[in-house]
């Protein structure tokens, strides 16, 4: 069931003022820190600081998207310079004037541009850059009900391709270091959820999930990881989303301090001011 206007206007307006859907990102935000969820999705507080990693990852995604779109449209594969133009255009588009970028140690725009150059060069040398798989979706938005009583799930899928017998969902990741297969499996909750929406596109095909991981290293690597799509895993993540949603719906918002998440949180001052009353 989709949230009605009345539900959105209620004191437990937990999806946010303008949303009648829930995203995997929102669910994981709550799981990491319920108070951050409240600030971002319920109170819709402005984010005055954005991490460079977020902008960088988004801009790399945009360059990859440009490459695949050009191929889908029957154009010549873009050159590295064209991909870098797409990267820079996306970087500019993702840094609104009212937001400060929080760079990591020793990072600035120039060093990240050089890193993008190396990463996109590495990508162009992979089979993925010249794949003949049939592309059916790039940054494709899917939306639908997965769990009765929980708002629609909104999924934005990086790449949807088909083979003769499968529908393949690919998620692009930029990572500090190379992934292991175990890391891919542990990071697959988003893909598993998305698989439930995507399988409705072509019900007669098996669904395959994969990550394409580009490392942000001196010598970047590009590696593909297939992940297991068992019904057990899909059921488990679906139930986890359902329980998370019930907690959100009940208005359980509290801080969950973490040395991993707090340093990059844009709501640190609001969090410090929070009294819980």
């Amino acid at each position, binding site marked *: 069931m989709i949230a009605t206007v009345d539900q959105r206007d209620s004191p437990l307006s937990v999806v946010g003022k303008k949303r009648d859907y829930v995203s995997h990102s929102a669910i994981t935000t709550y799981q990491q820190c319920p108070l951050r969820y409240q600030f971002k999705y319920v109170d819709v507080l402005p984010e005055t600081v954005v991490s460079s990693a977020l902008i960088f990852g988004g801009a790399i995604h945009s360059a990859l998207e440009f490459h695949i*779109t050009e191929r889908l449209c*029957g154009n010549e594969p873009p050159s590295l310079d064209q991909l870098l133009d797409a990267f820079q255009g996306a970087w500019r588009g993702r840094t609104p004037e009212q937001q400060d970028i929080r760079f990591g140690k020793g990072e600035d725009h120039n060093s990240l541009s050089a890193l993008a150059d190396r990463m996109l060069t590495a990508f162009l040398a992979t089979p993925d850059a010249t794949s003949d798989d049939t592309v*059916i979706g790039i940054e494709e*938005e*899917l939306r639908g009900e997965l769990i009765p009583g929980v708002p629609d799930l909104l999924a934005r899928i990086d790449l949807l391709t088909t083979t003769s017998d499968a529908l393949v969902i690919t998620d692009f990741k930029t990572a500090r270091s190379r992934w292991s297969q175990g890391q891919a499996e542990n990071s697959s909750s988003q893909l598993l959820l998305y698989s439930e929406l995507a399988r*409705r596109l*072509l019900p007669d095909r098996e669904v395959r999930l994969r990550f394409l991981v580009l490392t942000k290293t001196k010598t970047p690597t590009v590696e593909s990881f297939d992940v297991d799509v068992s019904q057990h895993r899909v059921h488990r993540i679906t139930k986890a989303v359902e329980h998370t949603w019930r907690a959100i719906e009940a208005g359980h918002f509290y801080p969950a301090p973490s040395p991993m998440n707090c340093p990059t949180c844009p709501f640190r001052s609001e969090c410090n001011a929070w009294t819980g009353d």
Partner: protein
Amino acid sequence: MPMKLNVGLSRKVGEPNYGSRGASVNLELELDNSLVEQPERLRDRIRQLYQLAEASVDEELNGTGQQPVGNNGHGGDHNNGHGGGLDQYRVSHQGTGNGNGQRQPANGHGPRQATSSQVKAIHAIAGRNRIDVGRLVQDRFNVQRPDDLSISDASTLIDELKSAQTGVSR
């Protein structure tokens, strides 16, 4: 041999989130040849047929009509005997629905419609080669616009357009 009268009507309505729904109906009526000699009566029959088509399309768009059974679970052909002023006629009608990111038949069954990436690609390739995409999909797949193609048909069309483009550029 009886005279045949064909009437077709289609209409689309906007939906939230940049989506749209469309319905079309085609009626075929067999008439007595003698009506050719009676233009007033013939026009009456045509008007009658159009009114029926309009009502059918409105029903489909408003969701007040009965679900037809046929291809994709949302379109199909069925014969209706309709007494009164109309002779035997054949009706085929189809309703389609799509919305941004949620392109699917309105009733949720059958093959999903082309993705937005596919639709953009079809327009881009066709535009570059000055191909009338509306006519192309009508002639080739009997749909009104690329949005109404199935995912598989959209892939086929993209491959064909790209092949034709490659052939031309050689």
